């Protein structure tokens, strides 16, 4: 029982990342009808927003501290971040410590901007072109974005720690009545899950309860009619592209403490996220979220020792296996709508 609970928990954080990326992919697909292979790159750029902000915070100048000496007796050189001068030492340390959560504020405008530029500058010209062309041009864009990041940040992963307050692990087992230390779970993963749930809830609430969201949903259902009613649906869809980019970016920002960002992390997630979208059903938002969590949890179950003893290597292929089975038995995915992407 405790093993099962542990695997469910382990699956949640990966599932959250899949769900967030798949949600963004589906938003873009559902609104604009574009298959965006550069979405993984947006996730990666989000992660590098966190890296950038933490670098900005830690920018420092060197002072010679006369009171301290190194082992040779020379005065010690101390790096003092500029931020200490602005906010004082205590507040400055706290800001550096909390740079990852603070990056959320930084990443939202950046990602929306990147999303809007991408849509207006490139994707716009591809609405009328076949899906294969959309896949190819966004695939090319993903390579370009990835290489730009590599040029500026290098090819090595850049560790970006979570705030010290979340550094430890949480003894989940003790809480629900198992032996202590059987189910321990890092705090940050819990935060990540909560954050993902919050973002997903916010996106759904935005679409469900605002006028803007209503128009967007109407546009998803029948773009032409909404346009004929005199609503500028293109502008709203562009904003939705920005929001989808922001969702992917935020998923990336918060993922940095779990997995140090490197330039190809986006591609690694993208392939899986596409599988998630297809399993969930092309164009179905709840389907994407459901499939994301489902596949994340399945993946962690498949990596249990007992399972691996009987079916070695299952954890490597489970997601693809599930995708193949789903696609062949339920062609529209778990919750796909009729008439989406069917020739």
């Amino acid at each position, binding site marked *: 029982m405790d093993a099962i609970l542990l695997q469910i928990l382990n699956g949640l954080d990966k599932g959250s990342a899949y769900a967030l990326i798949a949600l963004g992919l589906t938003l873009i697909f559902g609104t604009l009808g574009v*298959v965006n292979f550069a979405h993984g790159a947006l996730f990666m750029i989000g992660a590098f927003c966190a890296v950038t902000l933490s670098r900005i915070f830690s920018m420092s100048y060197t002072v010679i501290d006369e009171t301290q000496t190194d082992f040779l007796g020379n005065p010690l050189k101390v790096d003092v971040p500029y931020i200490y001068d602005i906010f004082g030492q205590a507040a400055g340390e706290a800001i550096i410590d909390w740079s990852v959560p603070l990056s959320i504020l930084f990443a939202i405008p950046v990602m929306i901007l990147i999303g809007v530029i991408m849509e207006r500058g*490139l994707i716009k*010209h591809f609405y009328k*072109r*076949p*899906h*294969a*062309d959309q*896949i*190819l*041009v966004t*695939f*090319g*864009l*993903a*390579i*370009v974005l*990835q*290489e*730009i990041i*590599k*040029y500026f940040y290098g090819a090595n992963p850049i560790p970006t720690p979570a705030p010290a307050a979340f550094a430890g692990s949480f003894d989940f087992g003790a809480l629900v009545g198992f032996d202590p230390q059987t189910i321990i779970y890092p705090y940050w993963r819990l935060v990540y899950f909560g954050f993902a749930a919050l973002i997903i809830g916010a996106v759904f609430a935005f679409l469900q309860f605002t006028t803007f969201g209503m128009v967007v949903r109407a546009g998803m259902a029948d773009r032409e009619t909404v346009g004929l009613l005199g609503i500028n649906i293109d502008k709203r869809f562009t904003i939705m592209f920005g929001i989808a980019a922001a969702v992917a970016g935020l998923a990336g920002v918060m993922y940095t403490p779990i997995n140090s960002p490197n330039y190809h992390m986006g*591609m690694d997630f993208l*392939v899986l996220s*596409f*599988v998630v979208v*297809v399993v969930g059903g*092309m164009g179905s938002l709840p389907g994407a979220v459901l499939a994301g969590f489902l596949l994340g949890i399945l993946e962690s179950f498949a990596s249990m020792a007992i399972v691996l003893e009987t079916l*070695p*290597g299952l954890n*490597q*292929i489970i997601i*693809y*296996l599930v*995708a*193949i089975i789903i*696609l*062949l038995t339920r*062609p529209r995915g778990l919750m796909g709508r009729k008439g989406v*992407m069917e*020739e």
Partner: protein
Amino acid sequence: MLGLTKKDFSLLMLVVALTMLAPFILNPFPEGSAMAQFNAGYPDLMQRFVIFGIFAIGFNILFGLTGYLSFGHAAFLGVGSYAAIWMMKLLTTNIIPAMVLAVIIAGLFSLIVGYISLRRSGIYFSILTLAFAQMSFAMAYSVLTPLTGGETGLQLRNTDARILESAPDGGGISRANLFGLEMTSSYELTLGAWEFTFNVGYYIAAIVMLLAFYLSIRIFRSPFGMMLRAIKSNNTRMNYTGLNAKPYTLAAFVISGMYAGLAGGLMVAMDTQVGPERMFWTASGEVVLMTILGGAGTLIGPVLGAGMIKYMENIISKINETILHQWFAFMPDGIEDLMVTMVYPFIGKGWHLTLGLIFMGVVIFLPGGLVEGGQRIARLFGKGKAADAKDTQSTPAE
């Protein structure tokens, strides 16, 4: 001639001439000159040109004719490679049985994958093939380690027990051969400052590529090829006319899988080793890039694309900052540094950036790839070429 129209025959002859004279054409700069690093006439790279050419020609039979975009073609290449290396390990280092087995195994594997994947089309087909390829990669990497050597892969060794050969003395890596002709042996020709290398492996691979190319011309011009094109332009109408399109697409899929297997087998014949990264999805992406870059649906396009990408990968990635400084040395110092800083991100390790930009440019402005670009230029200088171009013109794929 050879069952080809006059135009196709001259195209084939052009390719024959280009591949046979490649050691000269690719080595236009004298040894030791500043431009010598642009020489691509060394055996390793020339072999790669033709092998990836075969891979892309095969991919083009599927994507260019039927419009089905497979994102998992590298799996067949990998399977072919593994089959070939086992044949060489267990039977003989002669490459012929190895290549035959590579083609057969890759064909069987693509029959299974194609049978399942072709039940869907469009993006679903792409995702299904991608899923299969990633599964094969993951399995070759982990579970199937006894068969695939896992992460390290497999290598031909002198200690391998071969049925048809007695093992030569000592360990070391053995080389593949064709009835005693070693793949690595080459003849060096020095003409003044120029050096040309004629490599056995290259010529064998080139002859195989020419056969593959000839076959692809025949497929393109056959009723079967016509049927595949009909599927691409309007599958629904094909169904309404009472025709079951699936056997045709499956046949195209298997043929292109066999081409990939052949390329995989040749790769093993040349470097006598194989690793699972050959099946990773980026490798599948690469062949897509080659085909699109050259021109999907055209005869010569994939070969051009493969050549261009492999050339960039090997030549542009070798240029470093010092060489750039040499190039711009004639400029004043300030401008020299500025030029170097501006160009530097696009070369050396940054060649992927150049590749991505070129690829995006091609997809946006030239959906027909380099071939369409060539046709446009030809039309610009129009000498009655317009009618000529219409025939080979490509249509954007779906």
